[in-house]
């Protein structure tokens, strides 16, 4: 993996990214703007599942309101994140935060796909009040994305956070 990262870091594409110094802060800024859209979309849906907001609206409508924002912003983040990673591949693969973050994103994406399917399948049926299990899953989902955001910021502080777990 390190060999691959070193090879990638020496490719013309990576060098082109590295040499444009405005590119990294620009992409990071876009990445952070998108965090806002993704996280608040998650927050709205999770709070709706918990019966805290928008209870006059069917769950499927709340999902349809926020899902396009969630998926499209996540797509932009994948794009900006990919370019950032190509620009600094060794930094990413040596960061424990990076690998834990990617694993948690996989969990988040799979659970969002599953949630969307479930909600759409249940559309039109009478909605039961939120169960304890549903509340727990909603809170866990909020914390999952919080962890992803924290880990993203911690790629820059990997040694400080993970100490001997840092992979460099």
């Amino acid at each position, binding site marked *: 993996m390190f060999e691959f990262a070193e090879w990638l870091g020496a490719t013309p594409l990576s060098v082109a990214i590295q040499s444009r110094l405005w590119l990294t802060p620009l992409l990071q*800024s876009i990445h952070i*703007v998108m965090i806002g*859209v993704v996280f*608040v979309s998650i927050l709205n849906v999770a709070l709706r599942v918990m019966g805290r907001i928008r209870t006059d609206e069917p769950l499927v409508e709340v999902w349809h309101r926020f899902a396009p924002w969630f998926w499209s912003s996540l797509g932009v983040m994948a794009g900006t994140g990919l370019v950032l990673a190509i620009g600094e591949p060794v930094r990413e693969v040596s960061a424990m935060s990076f690998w834990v973050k990617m694993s948690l994103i996989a969990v988040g994406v799979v659970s969002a796909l599953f949630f969307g399917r479930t909600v759409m399948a249940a559309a039109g049926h009478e909605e039961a009040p939120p169960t304890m299990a549903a509340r727990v899953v909603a809170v866990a989902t909020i914390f999952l994305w919080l962890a992803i955001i924290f880990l993203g910021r911690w790629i820059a*502080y990997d040694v400080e956070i993970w100490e001997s777990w840092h992979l460099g």
Partner: protein
Amino acid sequence: MDLYGLVELAHNSALSEWMRTSLKAVAIINAVHVLSIATVFGTIFFVDLRLLGYPNVQRSFSRLHHALVRWTWAAFALSVVSGVLLFMVNALTYYRNTAFWLKMATIVIAGVNMLIFERFTFRSVANWDQAVLPPPAARLAGALSIVLWVSVIFLGRWIGFTKGYDFSIPEDVQFDFSLPSE
């Protein structure tokens, strides 16, 4: 005491010293800052979209505003606390950083935009609450708000690249637009 004296005091405080020597403090506070500012932007963004008449929903403006505004303020409070702490860690450097002052000025302008909206445009909300497309003044406030808060995020990220603190910049690179040091 002048502003510089105050900044110096903050820089040399025991709390700042502790944050500088602690390995994890800055990393944790920084992550809280990113999270809270993203939440401020995200909640404001969806309210601003409603002001711009997008998407075409039946939900009234005031109900949407009501559902999100507490999250905006909670996140804003958290971003101010984490931001003050981050400032204290390197107060003397930030004091000389142009991106930092531009960010502060942009937050003030965003605040004024919000205040004008709340004081004048929002007063007549009963007339346009259910309207798909709110009046021009409301739309302008919404558009300005999105632009200003995106600018705050960009300027914030720019501080990290111009203060010479947590990112190493090659020496031959002219990337600094901070004021010349005294």
